[in-house]
Structures are given as structure tokens and as C-alpha cells.
């Protein structure tokens, strides 16, 4: 990163930056890192305030190359274009420096334990005195208050406490956590929308906001229908419920791995007719059974008889074909069926490359060019772009501090 990373993907069209002119002061932490990235990629200036030893994420695996201590890939990904300043918040001079940054910010983003920012003299009340239109965002594991506010946790334990973990896995295995620390990502995403909505209002009214995001509550947004199932019927949704819900849903073995299908859709759809057309065209034995009227009813689809019948027709057909062959057929006949891909498959996806999804990074100092996920949204007038390389620790001190600012002004003869 630093000066060595050239951004091959940074060819900015003529569009403007949707979040240009917004300044974010992000106190580095894993809960808010992706939130800062979302702002940076649409044009905000994001100042990453790191401790003197650097943000913890700089030491997070996987790394470029074989060894720990090399450049962290998650750090590179989530900090593109951010400006770094190292401040020791135990030090009063550095705290003053931090407050100077906050004075000119639109958004303060912090994810310390509840109360820590106030101990540093950087709590909401002090910040608001200096900057009344500031949006002050706190992300914490359980929220700023309540009986669990001081509790410890990580992504796994929060996926547990928020309820997504209980739903994931098979009935005969322990619960298994989603890849990619999705609980922290969820908190960051909800923080981003809460913050941007408040900034829009602050820009119109001059009034800032204090916002309190709970990782646990962010995870409960992913329960699908489990809370309502319990509320309306008293039933507790178990692991494997999606696949057990009705015929045609689940993992289906094929020649070179698995495909995952929702062969009749979700709820009541017309997709059964598509399925019949596909299997008829392929000459699959027994397909006429799916024409019977009972298959139109969700109640029948959820019976063991329906599941066994579907499997007896579809599985022998799938076993003789590759993931790609099945996916091509499913696309043609409009069936919700997809290959169970590996990351290498994803990197080869013709669809993703056709949309220019991946962004190239040229790591000169590490000697390996590589690709990373690019735009999660295409805005016609104000395109997403990766704002630049991830910063070296304290790389932007001169530009960001009062001393630096004064020196630069002196250089310009002001």
C-alpha cells in the first residue's frame, strides 16, 4: 500500500462524487472499518485515527505473501483512500489534536467500548460543544447501555447472541458461523445508512445527531422469519429449516460438486411450470408427476412425500451433469438454481468480469498484482471508485495536523 500501490482500476469517469465535501473522522476499529470504506468509496474524506502501534487490522490475516507481518489484505481492502494519522489518546496533546479533527468533521465514527471516548474527553457532549452539526456515531457490541453493554465478544459470539448462528448448519452438526465476520460487517453497514441519513438532515438543518448502533441488534436483522414464526405459532425455527421447508430446496450433488436450488421459488410462484418444461425438454423420467395439481399448493410442497418425489426425479438427472450445465439450463428455464462456487470460481466468473466488478491493485512493494471486490453499486452520475491505496501508518500527519497545516500555509507564502 502506501506509495507502492498503483490503482489500475482508478479510471474515474466524468461523474462527480456523491459524498464529496463530507469529512469523516474514523477512530480505527473492526466494527466501523467497512462503514468508513463505504463513505470513502463514494467520495468522502475519511481520516483514520490509529493508535501509535497502528490499527489492529494491520495485523489481521490473510496477508500478502506467506507470512504474518506482511501487508494485511483486509486492511488494504477496507482502507483504500483513507488518510492515516497516529494519535495516542492517552496523551493530552494528541487528544487535543483529535478534537481539532473532530471540530471540522461531519461524521465521527468510533467503536470503543461504551464510555471510553468520554474518558478521553472526546465524548458526545464535548464534541457537540465544538461542532453542533456533527453526527456522532458509536458502534458497540451490545449498544451504549443495558445489562450487557460492558460484555466481551467477537464476531462468533455476536452471531450467537443475535440469533443468526442458531439457524446456520445442519440438524446433525453444531451451528456454524458465516464466513467473513458478517456480524461486524452488518454493524458497519447499518452504521453507514444511519450516519448518512443524519448527515443529509444535518446539512439541511445544521443539527447533528448522536447515533448508537448495536452489533447484536444488527445480527437480529438477519433472522429471516424466525422471530415472527415464534411470535405467531410458538415454534422455534431450527437449523436446516430452509432446506426442510419444502421440496426442491437445498444442496443437490452433481458431477463436479453441488448446486443449490429453490426449485419452486419462495412462497407460491409459477416456477413449477418452468421446471416441468426444463425437465420435459431434457427427457427426465417421471417429470409428468410434477404436473399434478397438488404441486401448486405450498402445504403439499412441505410434505415428506413431495420432497422424496422431487428428489427421485431431479437427483438422478443432476448427478449426470456439471454445475455449469445445470446452471445454464436453470437460466434458460428461469429456475432458481446456482452452482456452489469456491472463491476461485468466483474470480473466474464471466458475469462479474463482464460487469467489471473486480478492481486491480498493483502491489509493487510486494511484487504481486491482485484483484479485489469493486463497486457494490453502480451510480450513473456519481460512480463508485476505490479512492486510492490504503495508507501507511501516520502517512498524512503533516497534512492533517495544525502544525502541518501552518507549515504548508507558510510554504505557500500566506
Amino acid at each position: 500500500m502506501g506509495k507502492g500501490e498503483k490503482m489500475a482500476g482508478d479510471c474515474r469517469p466524468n461523474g462527480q462524487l456523491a459524498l464529496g465535501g463530507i469529512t469523516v473522522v474514523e477512530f480505527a476499529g473492526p466494527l466501523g472499518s467497512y462503514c468508513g470504506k463505504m463513505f470513502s468509496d463514494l467520495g468522502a474524506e475519511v481520516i483514520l485515527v490509529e493508535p501509535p502501534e497502528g490499527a489492529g487490522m494491520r495485523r489481521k490475516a490473510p496477508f500478502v505473501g506467506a507470512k504474518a507481518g506482511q501487508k494485511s489484505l483486509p486492511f488494504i481492502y477496507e482502507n483504500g483512500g483513507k488518510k492515516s494519522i497516529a494519535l495516542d489518546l492517552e496523551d493530552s496533546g494528541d487528544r487535543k489534536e483529535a478534537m481539532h479533527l473532530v471540530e471540522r468533521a461531519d461524521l465521527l465514527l468510533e467503536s470503543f467500548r461504551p464510555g471510553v471516548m468520554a474518558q478521553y474527553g472526546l465524548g458526545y457532549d464535548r464534541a457537540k460543544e465544538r461542532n453542533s452539526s456533527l453526527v456522532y456515531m458509536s458502534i458497540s457490541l451490545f449498544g451504549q447501555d443495558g445489562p450487557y453493554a460492558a460484555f466481551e465478544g467477537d464476531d462468533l459470539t455476536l452471531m450467537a447472541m443475535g440469533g443468526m448462528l442458531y439457524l446456520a448448519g445442519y440438524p446433525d452438526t453444531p451451528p456454524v458461523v458465516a464466513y467473513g465476520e458478517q456480524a461486524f460487517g452488518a454493524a458497519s453497514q447499518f452504521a453507514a445508512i444511519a450516519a448518512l441519513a443524519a448527515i443529509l438532515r444535518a446539512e439541511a438543518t445544521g443539527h447533528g445527531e448522536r447515533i448508537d448502533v448495536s452489533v447484536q441488534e444488527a445480527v437480529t436483522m438477519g433472522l429471516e422469519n424466525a422471530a415472527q414464526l415464534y411470535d405467531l405459532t410458538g415454534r422455534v425455527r431450527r437449523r436446516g429449516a430452509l432446506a426442510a421447508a419444502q421440496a426442491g430446496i437445498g444442496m443437490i450433488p452433481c458431477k463436479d460438486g453441488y448446486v443449490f436450488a429453490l426449485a419452486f421459488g419462495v412462497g407460491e410462484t409459477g416456477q413449477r411450470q418452468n421446471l416441468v418444461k426444463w425437465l420435459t425438454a431434457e427427457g427426465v423420467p417421471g417429470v409428468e408427476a410434477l404436473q399434478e395439481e397438488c404441486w401448486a399448493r405450498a402445504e403439499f410442497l412441505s410434505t415428506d412425500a413431495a420432497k422424496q418425489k422431487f428428489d427421485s426425479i431431479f437427483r438422478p438427472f443432476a448427478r449426470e451433469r456439471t454445475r455449469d450445465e445445470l446452471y445454464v439450463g436453470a437460466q434458460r428455464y428461469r429456475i432458481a438454481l446456482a452452482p456452489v462456487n469456491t472463491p476461485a470460481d468466483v474470480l473466474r466468473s464471466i458475469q462479474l468480469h463482464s460487469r467489471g466488478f473486480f478492481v486491480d491493485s498493483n502491489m509493487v512493494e510486494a511484487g504481486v498484482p491482485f484483484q479485489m471486490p469493486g463497486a457494490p453499486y453502480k451510480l450513473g452520475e456519481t460512480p463508485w471508485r476505490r479512492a486510492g491505496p490504503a495508507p501507511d501508518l501516520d502517512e498524512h500527519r503533516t497534512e492533517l495536523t495544525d502544525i502541518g497545516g501552518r507549515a504548508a500555509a507558510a510554504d505557500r507564502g500566506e
Partner: protein
Amino acid sequence: MMSELPLAGIRVADFCWIGAGAYTTRLLADLGAEVIKIESTVHLDSLRLAPPFKDNDRGVNRSGYFADRNSGKSSFTVNIKTEEGLNLVKELIAQSDIVTNNFSAGTMDRVGLGYDTLRHINPAIIFLGMSTHGSDGPESRALGYGATITAITSLMYLTAFPDGLPAGTGTNYPDHIPNPCHAVFAVLAALRHRRRTGKGQSIDIAQTETMLALMAPGLMDCSANGREVQPSGNQLPGSSPRGVYPCAGDDRWIAISIQTDLQWAALIDCLGGTALRQPDWASHAGRVRDCAQIQSEITKLTIGRDAGALFEALQSCAIPSGIVQNAQDLVDLDPQLDHRGHWKRLGHKEMGRTVYNGLPFKYASVELGPNRPAPLLGEHTEQICRNLLGLGAGEVEALKGRGVLS
């Protein structure tokens, strides 16, 4: 002093249905936008007929799944396959700020409501399309749901135990968090641009791509180093041991994640016994090496214990841990969610008071939504015809008679 909701005064003409789209516009409603759900009684939002139903009685106004994703919206039924119906919708869009859909790519163009048409009706309109694969590319027409998106993005493959079947989240996860959140963020950014320039714009989201944006490390490791990350169950580099362990009762588990040697020492004391007191295991490297053995020793110590009591004991020793909570725990028992007022109970005309997810964030100055239940099918059709489209009672009746408002 209470302040205004941040999206007060913003109107959304909402064609979203089923999962991801519906949660997107629900979030906009929670933030104060007026969301008009444009529906058809012929081509129903299939989520209206997705269980669970109130009293197990199937009906278009009785699905709890639908209700949670559509709180705070108005429902306007109209047949856009009639010329009159299509014109009513265009009139509504002329008075709206945002148009949203999560149909398959090309559908809005086909029904005469593509961005190129709508921007002539309303140049400041923000047009959000969030199809499975985006608006272009060879697979753009492929049908998908949240769960198939987890398959195609490798989330399903990577969420599994080593040597186990790919498992995934067991849900249509991208519909619930990654897609709604990214879509709302993009819409808010476009609103800011419009405020500064007067210009609307079109936003194209591929639901696969928002999911992949949250899966970067594995893809980058593969691309940069040629290393293919493999499923590792509940393990994570840097923490050890990290896993879930059975407790007393039916399908009860506790999650524990040890990140430091100090936490490990505290865990040994907290769980008791002597089996974990191996000098080799005092260091992270030793614990990584003997991870399987450690997991089985911890299991012996948790298996008879009550998950809730164990959680309190572990937390009193500052050990990162959590009960693997089920829906009953979350809705009825969790004191933290109760303290935070997370669950909202809203009164619905047919379903009565039922549970809705509250937002996972709070504003200090104003209470955010949801504060109105999901709409009945077509509940606000007449009101919208009169108040927004300027139609008299007789005209509304005539349109109904011709099947336009169905």
C-alpha cells in the same frame, strides 16, 4: 427536543417485492420516507403467501414474514398492464423522489417503466434497480434468491465445517442485511447528489456483488497468493480456541472465542477441572496445534451446564462468549434486547399485535420507525387515488369497475 425524521418529505414509488427489495424500502420508511408499495392482486408479492401465518390461517394479509419486511408502507394496487393503470403509476412517479424495484433485469423496461422513460417524466427521479446479477452481462437474466446468491458467491461453500457439506447461513442472508443496507446507502448518496445538483440518477445493484463486497479477504488471498481458503467451521486465524460447545438441554450451545493468553488463563479458572491446565496450551501456538483436543476437553466441561448461567460466569471473567440464542431467547428472554426496546409490537388490522424487528440503531433526538404495521393488500389504493392522483370518488369506482385498480 424531538427533531424530524431524516427522510421526512421523501416519497418512494416502490415496486420491490419478496426479500431484499422489501427490506430496503422498509428501512427507508423507518427513516421517515413515505413508501408507496405498488402491488398487483394478480401477480402477488409471493411473500404475502409465505409462512408463518397468523393462526396458521393462510391469507394475503396474514404472513408474519411479509409483515416484518413491509411495515410503515402504504399499499396501492393497480394493474399496470392496462394503459390507464400504467398512466396512474407514471403520474405517481412524477410526484415521487425515488423509484425502486428488485425485479429481474429488464423487467421495468418491458412494462414501460424503465429509467429512460421515467427520467423524461421526472428528471430528478432516483431509480434503484437491484436484480440478482445486475442490469447487464451474460447471466443478467438468471433467476435468484438470497440463498442461491450465497451459493454463487462462495459464502455457502466457505460456511461449513472442514470435510462437511457446504452449509451457508441456513437463510436467504443477502436479502436481509447486505443488499438492503447497500441499496439504502446508495439511495441516500443519490439524494445528496440531487440536493446539490438537482439531478436524479439510476442506480444498478447486482445482489451478488454487494454480497461479495463483504467477502473480500478470501477472494484477495486467492488472487494475490493463489491460496484457496477452505471452510474452517467456527475457527478464525488469530483466535484459539474458538467454537461452539454443547450445554444442558435440547440443542443448547455456548460460543467462546479466546483471543489472548490472559483470556485462556481466565477460561481455565472459570470452567474448572485440570484437563485444560497443560503448559503447552498457555501459548497461542500450542492451542492452535492441539485445537481438536482442546475443543473436546472444553465440551466435557460445558455439556452439563446451563448456557445462560455459564454465559454470565464467563462474562464475569471478561471472556468473549455468547449463548447461541434461538428465536424464543431473543423475543422473550434476552434482557439486553428488552432494555433496548428492540422488538416492536405493532397492531395490524387482520393480524393484531405482532412482532417486528426494530432498527439496530438509535438516534438520540427522535424515535425512528417502524411505527406503522404492514399494509393490507390495496389498503391505501383509494386514498392515494384521491389525495395524490386527484381522482374523485366516482372516477375511482369507475376505475375499479374496469379492473384498473386490482
